[in-house]
């Protein structure tokens, strides 16, 4: 049985992925910096010796690295934490002869959009500290792949949505505001409403499963729905259910539109995003309200 380690296992994607991989017959372990239970251990990725002895003891076949911090209020913390976590993990892979590594990167590595849909060859000029660290980590992965011959798949994941997401995220925040009979405030920039690509967490987990099954096709892949959506569309779905009023706030400045080319993941990972936003919205709305 393939033995897998997931970092960031208690996070939004990690917790869903843990269940999916177990269902698919993998021997799944996780590490988290927040809690330990069953096959999940509380270990900081910055604690190199503890991390290394844990990995050595368990003899994993594959590591899926999801852990990252996103706190934009402390950009230096993001840089240090994310970079050194990945460095420690990759070093541990080399020291313990683990050849297969899946890294959850982000669409934030692209930065300003030059053309749509954005493919994997699009230039990378990240604007946020989170995007910068993800690109730094991707470069670390490239180095370990070339120098130590590791088999590394990098997944550039688009904006994720799904049930039980943090309330501060765009969609739960919008739903809860509308439910509380508040207005839905939409930001309209000088170049219109932002065009985005939102992928459901189940699709993201499925893309990681597809990557596991196709480790021989390691490389860089966009993981996105391939369907453009605007905040205005999301607000209209919400309005249909809640009858809330939409207030359009004109913003000074321009926004960055983003949608992604997904044909490479379709071809080499056999991954196809299946969940349509509009079909999932009602259940997303219900669970968000129930957990309010």
């Amino acid at each position, binding site marked *: 049985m393939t033995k897998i380690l997931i970092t960031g296992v208690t996070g939004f994607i990690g917790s869903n992925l843990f269940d999916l991989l177990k269902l698919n017959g993998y021997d799944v372990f996780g590490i988290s910096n927040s809690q330990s239970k069953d096959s999940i251990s509380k270990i900081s990725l910055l604690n190199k010796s503890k991390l290394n002895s844990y990995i050595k003891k368990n003899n994993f076949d594959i590591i899926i690295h999801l852990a990252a911090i996103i706190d934009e209020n402390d950009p230096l913390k993001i840089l240090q934490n994310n970079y050194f976590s990945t460095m420690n993990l990759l070093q541990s892979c080399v020291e313990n002869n683990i050849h297969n590594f899946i890294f959850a990167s982000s669409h934030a590595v692209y930065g300003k959009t030059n*053309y749509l849909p954005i493919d994997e060859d699009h230039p990378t000029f990240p604007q946020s500290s989170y995007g910068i660290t993800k690109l730094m980590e991707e470069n670390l992965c490239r180095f370990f792949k070339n120098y130590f011959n590791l088999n590394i798949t990098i997944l550039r994941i688009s904006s994720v949505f799904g049930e039980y997401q943090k309330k501060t995220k765009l969609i739960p925040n919008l739903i809860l505001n509308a439910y509380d009979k508040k207005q839905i405030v939409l930001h309209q920039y000088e170049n*219109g409403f932002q065009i985005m690509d939102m992928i459901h967490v189940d699709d993201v987990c499925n893309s990681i499963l597809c990557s596991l099954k196709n480790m021989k096709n390691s490389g860089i892949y966009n993981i996105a729905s391939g369907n*453009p959506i605007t905040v205005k569309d999301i607000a209209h779905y919400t309005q249909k259910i809640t009858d809330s009023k939409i207030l359009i706030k004109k913003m000074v400045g*321009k926004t960055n539109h983003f949608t992604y080319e997904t044909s490479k993941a379709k071809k080499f990972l056999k991954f196809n995003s299946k969940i349509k936003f509009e079909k999932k919205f009602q259940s997303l709305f219900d669970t968000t309200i129930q957990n309010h």
Partner: protein
Amino acid sequence: MMKLIIFDFDDTITDNRNLDFESFRISCNFFNIKNPLSLKKLVDLRKKSFTAQKILKSIKISTENTFSTKNFLKYRNDFLLSDQSNLYLQIKKDTKLILKTLEKKKIPIFLCTVRNDKQLVRNFLKKNNIEFYFTDIYCSSDLIEKIDNNDSDNRILIKSSLLKKIIKKNKFKHNEILYIGNSFEDRIASSIHKIFFLKLNNDYLPQENYNYQYSTTNMKNLNKIIKKLIEKDD
């Protein structure tokens, strides 16, 4: 050297000044307003980068009725998007000369425009008997994203996305592709893909302070430049 030529549409192979003028005149008629614009005045304003909204502000339309700029602009835009607009859109003199040159050399010609309505573009090409010269036409409606083409940054994004599609489909090297357009937006879109750009300067639109590798003001001269660029390969 050049194996693929891409043309922009509005104000590149077309002369839009009459259409622009008529759009204001017809809209004024509809709203029972005396048109204070002359063609000369309109050209002067356009040279100063005035948008339609800014033009309306500057000409201070006097009317006893309450005047809605928003309604006026919507009516004008609807007219510009209608088939009727083709009556006033003119093909630039000697455009056919270039198309024939390219046809003789079997160079594929593409059209790339931020317009949404491909049929309108086709109708214009048909009306001027030049449709068959073009291998394909790419409009903003070819993108799955609906991007508002009234914004300059969005127009760059649309053009750049369409150019990407053309480049991907035709497997030429980037230095074998020439894009011919009339605006800085066209220049930026081509620079994104590192393809050659030729600026067709237009006395109707604002002049840009930029040192272009290739530029000209008329189709006859453009034909000479294109011949040279193609013959470099022979």
